[in-house]
């Protein structure tokens, strides 16, 4: 056990750090879930598409565009790209089952990953900074020693997650578009019979997921300080783990799963100091295994019943 176990500042630091990382995982998990809910597919290229979006932000800021405007443009571009991928690459494979679609997203993974490296190089580039991240950009809570403070970046990321969740809730629950999306998620055939454009709802889900991923990648880059072509490789695993934990078809589940995973991954190495090095991927793997073996539908997911 850590010797700092009774130190409130240390524990609070772990808590905030865990929640901040968890919010990022939650964003990726939301993207995964929004794709899965309607199409029952997992987009394994989600992370690479997100990295591409973050590089679009980077390229725009290099041209002198204000960072939030650059993010807005990148979100629109990612939405269109995500929807386009669904329509052009995934839809024709829809009828052939899960495996060809998984392969197609893997192909997309390879292509996007290599294209990013070709265009922007394999060396990390400085990340765009939507939130101020100087050393004094923080709120001091406990003066200490040891001090406890919350950085603006952490606050900003948590605020983005909350705003996004509210926005998604409004979009899905209060608009006609959201109603159509939920109808397709609940029962594809019935929705089709009712005249809901099922295909457009698939594209909508993929588009929103693409935009969410881009936002996540931009924020991941900011917390890491740099952006490179492999930035999202492990974050995708964390996002998938978060989605598994929360339930693959549950939007609130993705958020809760992401935050919970963030906390687990902050507190386990923080308290059990005999764990050396960065084994966060292993922890994520264990979380996934435990969830799938104990409660395969996740915390908030719908249990699927199969008639055999």
């Amino acid at each position, binding site marked *: 056990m850590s010797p700092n176990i009774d130190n409130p500042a240390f524990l609070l630091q772990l808590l905030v750090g865990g929640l901040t990382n968890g919010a990022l995982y939650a964003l990726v998990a939301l993207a995964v879930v929004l794709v899965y809910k309607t199409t029952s*597919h*997992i987009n*394994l290229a989600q992370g690479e598409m997100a990295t591409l979006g973050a590089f679009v932000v980077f390229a725009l800021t290099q041209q002198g565009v204000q960072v939030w405007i650059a993010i807005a443009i990148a979100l629109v571009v990612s939405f269109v790209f995500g929807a386009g991928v669904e329509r052009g*690459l995934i839809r*024709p*494979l829809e*009828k*052939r*089952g*899960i*495996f*060809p679609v*998984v*392969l*197609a997203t*893997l*192909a*997309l*993974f*390879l*292509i996007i*990953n*290599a*294209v990013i*490296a*070709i*265009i922007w*190089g*394999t060396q990390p580039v400085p990340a765009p900074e939507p939130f101020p991240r100087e050393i004094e950009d923080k709120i001091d809570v406990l003066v200490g020693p040891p001090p406890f403070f919350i950085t603006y970046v952490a606050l900003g990321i948590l605020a983005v997650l909350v705003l996004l969740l509210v926005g998604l809730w409004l979009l899905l629950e209060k608009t006609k578009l959201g109603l159509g999306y939920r109808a397709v998620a609940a029962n594809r055939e019935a929705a089709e019979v009712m005249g809901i454009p099922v295909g457009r709802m698939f594209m909508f889900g993929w588009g929103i997921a693409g935009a969410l991923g881009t936002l996540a990648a931009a924020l991941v880059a900011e917390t890491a300080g740099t952006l490179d072509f492999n930035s999202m*490789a*492990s974050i995708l*695993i964390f996002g*998938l*783990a978060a989605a*598994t934990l929360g339930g*693959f078809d549950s939007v609130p589940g993705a958020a809760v799963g992401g935050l919970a995973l963030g906390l687990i991954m902050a507190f386990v190495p923080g308290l059990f100091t005999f764990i*050396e*090095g*960065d*084994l966060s*991927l*292993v922890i*994520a*793997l264990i979380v*996934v*295994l435990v969830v*799938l*073996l104990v409660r*395969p539908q996740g915390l908030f997911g719908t249990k699927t019943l199969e008639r*055999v």
Partner: protein
Amino acid sequence: MSELDDERSMAALASDERQRGALVSARVVLEGSRSHRVWQGTGLLLAALVVLLLPVLVSDFRIGQFSLVIAYSVAVLGLNLVTGFSGQISLGHGAFFGIGAYTTAILVTDHGWAWAATVPLAAVLGLALGFAVGVPALRLHGLYLAVITLAVGVAFPVVVSQPIGLALGTGGVAGKTARISWDKPGWFGLDVSDRGWMFLVMAAVAGLLFWLATGLVRSRVGRSMVALRDNGTAAAISGIWPAEVKTVAFAVSAMYGAIGGSMYLLTTPIVSPSTVGFTVTLLFITAMVLGGAATVSGAWIGGLAMVFLPYYTAEWAGQIPFLRSLTDQPGLFANVIYGVVLIVFIYFVPGGLVPLLTRLRTRFLRIVPPEAAAVATDAAPGSATTAGEPDGGLAGPTPAIGGHPTHSPEAPIRTDQETTR
């Protein structure tokens, strides 16, 4: 099936051939017959001759490349077994490959083992890890399995560079070097270099492994794998125990991956986290689809593609000034091409190249299983290496109980006494 039926079916086949008179009429050979054996023997002999002559005729550099082809082919074969034949998505094959490579590297460099002595241990470790991954696979299918194996595949290269990996001697991010030198023994008559001798040994090992894999997919376990893939429920009703078959498939697949990794070290004296990263897994998957997921011989084509596609792409990209100006790593263009090839194959050639080549061969030589001769029509009969769906279910969802309507030529359940080659 009675004699009479056989004769009738042969007559039907013959008339079928006459109707397609414009084509070169194909020779029809009954599977397992004497002439079939002769054809096969000739083919094997030719292949052996090519392998033997290769180190005599081509340069050491080329031999290095062909050795790499062998190592990759063995690893791809493992993926074929678990994904193509038993229909389970495995996105962690790079980790299995890495287990083998690291085991060999550490044992050779730190403990002074001979290469050949490390291979069995690498195989056993691969079996154990594959079994460990296969156990959760029992309760999970489809996408959940993808998530688990993906996590294994992404976590492995990270773990080897962590303190826990360093303690085992993985050498961290820089990788682990292992210099394995081979001397041609005096009794070997052919005029080959030491590297050529190594290539021949690798070819012999790989030949054995491919032969074993062929036996496996034709065995009771192999046919159970295919049955579970095509219709799990029906297979279970027919008395197949899914738990056993699925874990065996995963374990054997991982074992092939690990042996492939061990062999890889013979061709390349270093293994690092980037050689066993997720990209390698993706290349394995592409190679599998390219050659033919549900074939054994497709793994060769996959291995060839894994070596020569990046090589020639880099050469080609280096010649075009515009492409050369884009990046200093021409290998990246190969990854783009891999991705494009994968998409093209999923869309247009879901069965892979081997079934395509088999169909081409049937224009000249048709091999018909005796029990299928009655129903063999225009459809290409099963090749020597294809069992069940030629594409491992890539082309579509599994049929309901009752089977594929177009699938009758191979529908009859073969018995254990079926002749193996």
